[in-house]
């Protein structure tokens, strides 16, 4: 490992990989470090992503696509189903990835473009001189060394520590961290072209339980509930085990993964002198779905582009890196994050009864577009009597 780079990226998930890939393509010297012994394992994710989001970065490859999803089903507490179908014109539904291979592909792209990659290597301390971040002390297989960089990109995920060491508060409020448990289950009867979402206080209070197809007879079956709802006997794992016993008693669990998913607003500012924060570390996760792969890649690419300009201009101060923060907030992604946060705040307050009523009102519609906006607009249109409650939702869509 060299002791000096233009860009040091901390974390080898999709956000970090795309940042290093973009930086290398821009002709910068880039170093990507990942604390785990392997890229993409263990990954903590339900692995779903919208098609358009993915294809903005790379062509889909069967090696890392587990399932091509044609429809989604939302199951209300009383069992009422809402079908969301893929539109013939190609509206996005999504893929379920195999992150073990997908993450490796992205890191391979970064490496192919010229970035140096180091696994089992973690940042242990920031190098700060005169209040400006100059890189990090890293520990690689037990060996410590300084890696200096003009810009350091923190892509260290939900358990992000690096930005915090640099004085930026990144702790997630406990009521806005989704506690998640997921099993990869095989030998079960599922619809291999559907992603299913189960709602309700009995199934997943203030969260949802998902069954994402991973093949003909296998699926990611997982749950996310707010951390504050975890109680002895009623933890995320307990809810999931009860669901499994009821729906897939004979399924074989061949993988279990756990993790936190931040559904809070993004952190207040994602740059400081010499530092940029991206992906889950910046909390740019969709507050409704909990999905973060695409947003991590978007912020990774933008961060590297802005870093390249700043480095070329010889100024990597907070002001010079600020266009990154301003641009992603103004982008469609940034606007959707804010809108979906408000929509989420509305839905978590709904009783099962109201949720059933809403689901019932739209149960027989085939949605051509799989989007939060389309769903919410239809709810508002079909529930004039609930307009007072839905006002909050209507207001959220205005912004």
């Amino acid at each position, binding site marked *: 490992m060299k002791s000096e780079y233009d860009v040091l990226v901390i974390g080898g998930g999709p956000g970090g990989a795309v940042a290093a890939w973009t930086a290398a393509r821009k002709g910068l010297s880039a170093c990507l470090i990942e604390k785990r012994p392997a890229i993409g394992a263990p990954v903590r994710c339900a692995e779903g992503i919208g098609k358009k989001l993915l294809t903005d970065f790379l062509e889909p490859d069967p090696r890392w696509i587990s399932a091509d999803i044609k429809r989604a089903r939302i199951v209300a507490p009383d069992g009422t189903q809402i079908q969301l179908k893929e539109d013939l014109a190609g509206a996005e539904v999504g893929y379920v990835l195999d992150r073990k291979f997908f993450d490796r592909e992205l890191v391979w792209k970064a490496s192919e473009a010229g970035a140096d990659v180091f696994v089992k290597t973690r940042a242990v301390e920031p190098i700060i001189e005169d209040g400006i971040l100059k890189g990090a002390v890293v520990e690689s297989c037990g060996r410590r060394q300084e890696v200096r960089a003009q810009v350091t990109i923190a892509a260290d995920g939900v*358990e992000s520590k690096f930005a915090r060491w640099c004085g930026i508060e990144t702790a997630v409020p406990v009521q806005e961290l989704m506690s*998640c448990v997921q099993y990869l289950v095989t030998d079960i009867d599922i619809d291999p072209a559907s992603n299913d979402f189960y709602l309700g206080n009995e199934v997943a209070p203030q969260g949802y339980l998902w069954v994402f197809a991973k093949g003909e007879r296998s699926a990611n079956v997982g749950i996310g509930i707010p*951390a504050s709802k*975890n109680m*002895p006997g009623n933890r995320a794992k307990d809810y999931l085990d009860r669901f499994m016993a009821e729906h897939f008693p004979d399924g074989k669990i061949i993988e279990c993964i756990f993790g936190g998913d931040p559904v809070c607003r993004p952190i207040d500012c994602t740059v400081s002198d010499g530092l940029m924060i991206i992906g889950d570390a910046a909390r740019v996760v969709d507050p409704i779905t909990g999905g973060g792969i695409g947003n991590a890649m978007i912020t990774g690419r933008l961060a590297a582009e802005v870093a390249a300009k700043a480095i070329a201009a010889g100024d990597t101060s907070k002001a010079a890196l600020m266009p990154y923060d301003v641009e992603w907030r103004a982008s469609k992604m940034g606007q959707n994050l804010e809108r979906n946060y408000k929509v989420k705040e509305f839905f978590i307050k709904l009783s099962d009864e109201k949720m059933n009523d809403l689901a019932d009102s739209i149960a027989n519609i085939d949605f051509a577009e799989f989007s939060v906006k389309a769903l919410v607009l239809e709810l508002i249109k079909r529930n004039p009597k609930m307009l007072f409650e839905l006002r909050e939702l209507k207001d959220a869509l205005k912004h």
Partner: protein
Amino acid sequence: MLNIRREICGYCGACVSVCPEGALELIDAYLTVDSETCINCGICTKACPLGALEVINEV
């Protein structure tokens, strides 16, 4: 003091992300607690989806 039940812990980092003091860390995919920094507030015990953390009040 904070007790990590390692036989249950999935080393996922959920607790790390909510710790207000930054006392928890995943090192080599292994959860560690800095007992000097930990204030035994118990927030991490809520975040854990598996119930692997507990605050033990010593007398």
